[in-house]
Every structure is written in structure tokens, then in C-alpha cells.
């Protein structure tokens, strides 16, 4: 699953590369970093990322994982620190979890934090609690806001039983699907699904 998601991510980046190099120009990136691979070399690295993503379908070799981490990091630097925000974070969390002996626990902790922290920063604001901001940002009805925040904040409960975990993850799939269809965050949908996949294949 992760290999396929990384393939999708890389193909998207390869597709927008001609525009990217005109906006996030090499000169401006090198001004910030001092050194960065040339455009031709970076383009070649994107193809290497695609090959490494395909390789992940057959083997979870640490070498492949390190190649993917390195090129993901370089891509983020090219975009001033992050290409697609949270989906970059989750990509690196899943990849790094493959390198650790207790990687699934690390992934479970980060997945839980991704909901709890996001929920807590929003629930303290009255505009989020009464749904005004949800409607403003997404056009969804205001009454959905509080249940969504409660689902996010209570996510640690999901780990209390396999049945509850399936319930929380099912809501999570709907949540990320809405984000993809309303906010254009398709990469979040796929990478969070990859995180779910890696966890449930062990937990259940």
C-alpha cells in the first residue's frame, strides 16, 4: 500500500516539475541552502524515487527506505520546507517507522497525535466549536464541527479494543475522503490510509 501511495505522490510531482522549476527556481533554493542538486539531477532523483517506491512493493529494504527519506526531504527543501504540509510529515513518519524495531508503536503514537493535536488546537477556539469556521472553510454544515473535534480529541480511545479501532478508522476514512473532495487534499487521504493499513495488519 505504501509503495503504491509513494508512486502516486512521485508521479504527481514529476507531472508538475516543469512549472515547479519556474517558480521554486534553483537559484532561489540555492540562496537559502548554499547547495542543491541541479534541475536535471533533481529530476533524475524524482525518477529514482519512483523506482524506489516500486521497489517497496517487493522489499522493505532499509536502503530503499533511506533513498525515499532522502528524496522526500530534498523535495520538501525545494518547496521551502514542505510540499504538501501534513502529508509530507506522515510520509516521513511511515518511512521512518520502517527503520525502527518498535516502528508500529511510533507510527501509532504519531497517528494518534495527528488527530489529538489537530483537535485540541481547534477545540479551544469558539469559532471551531460553533461550526462557523468549518462552514467558512469547507461549506459543510456547522453542526458537524463539534462531533468532528470530539472524534479527533478522543482518538486515543481507539486503541482500547480492535472493534473501537475499526470504528475510529472508518470515521477517519470518511473524514479524509471529505478533506480530499472538498479541500483537494488527496495526498492526505492516501498517506493516512497507508498508515491505517500498516497498523491494522498488525493490531487486528
Amino acid at each position, binding site marked *: 500500500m505504501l509503495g503504491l501511495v509513494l508512486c502516486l505522490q512521485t508521479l504527481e510531482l514529476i507531472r508538475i516539475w516543469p512549472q515547479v522549476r519556474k*517558480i521554486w527556481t534553483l537559484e532561489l533554493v540555492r540562496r537559502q541552502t548554499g547547495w542543491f542538486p541541479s534541475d536535471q539531477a533533481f529530476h533524475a532523483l524524482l525518477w529514482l524515487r519512483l523506482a524506489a517506491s516500486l521497489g517497496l512493493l517487493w522489499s522493505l529494504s532499509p536502503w530503499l527506505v533511506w533513498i525515499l527519506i532522502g528524496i522526500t526531504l530534498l523535495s520538501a527543501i525545494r*518547496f521551502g520546507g514542505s510540499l504538501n504540509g501534513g502529508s509530507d*510529515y506522515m510520509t516521513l513518519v511511515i518511512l521512518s517507522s520502517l527503520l525502527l524495531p518498535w516502528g508500529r508503536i511510533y507510527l501509532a503514537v504519531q497517528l494518534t497525535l495527528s488527530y*489529538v493535536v489537530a483537535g485540541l488546537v481547534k477545540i479551544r*477556539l469558539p469559532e471551531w466549536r460553533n461550526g462557523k469556521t468549518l462552514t467558512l472553510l469547507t461549506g459543510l454544515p456547522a453542526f458537524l464541527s463539534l462531533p468532528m473535534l470530539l472524534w479527533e480529541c478522543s482518538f486515543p480511545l481507539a486503541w482500547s479494543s480492535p472493534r473501537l479501532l475499526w470504528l475510529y478508522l472508518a470515521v477517519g476514512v470518511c473524514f479524509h475522503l471529505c478533506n480530499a473532495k*472538498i*479541500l483537494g487534499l488527496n495526498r492526505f487521504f492516501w498517506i493516512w490510509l497507508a498508515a491505517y493499513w500498516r497498523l491494522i495488519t498488525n493490531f487486528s
Partner: protein
Amino acid sequence: MAYFALMLLPVLLGGRWRRLLRVLVPSWRFFENAELPPRLWLRYEEWEPGWKPLRRALWFNPEDLLELACRDLVHALCADLEENSRPIQDCESYLMLVNLARERGAHRFKLCQQGDDIFLSASF
């Protein structure tokens, strides 16, 4: 363990590396502001909205990936304006927005929030 050593880099290097390497340290603080972010306007004959509509496709969606990355440039410029440590025309976020505006055939850009202009670029 080597990966966790890597995670210390943004802290150890500091400065602009803290921003450039921020993906190494996950931050899950999404949508912590209750208001709409500033919007980009581009100057052609008239001012026109700078954002393209999102396709919202679930599978292969490079158009939205590019569009959202462009929208993040506005956040980067706002952060640089707030930091105010060097002339804004020297900031990479400003120069990248100039590149974006040029790429879309415009010769000037501005940022608006809740109907007010909060930043107006030079003509280029």
C-alpha cells in the same frame, strides 16, 4: 536511531534550516486559525483572483498539488512580513510569488484578507 539523529538537525542548525527541515519533526497543528487565510490577487488589465479552482480529484491530482503549494507561498510571505528581518523584496517567498505571477502572465500581485489589501507588490 540514525533517523532520530536526523530529526535533531533543524534544532542544531537553527536559522533558516529550522524552516527548511521542518518536515523532519511532525507538527499536527492544522487549521489553528479561525479566519480565512490571505488571498492572492494578480494584476492583468484589472485585478483578478490569483487562485485557480481546485479539481478535487481523489486519485492522480497534480493540479491541486501545485495549486496548494502555490497557496503555501502566501503563508511563507506572511511569515516573512511578520518576521521583518530583511527587505521583503529580498525574501525568497516574495521572489517565488513574483515567479508565480509571471508564470500566470501577471505583472503585479497583492494579498487581501477580509476585503482589505494587506500587501501590494512592486510592478515587474
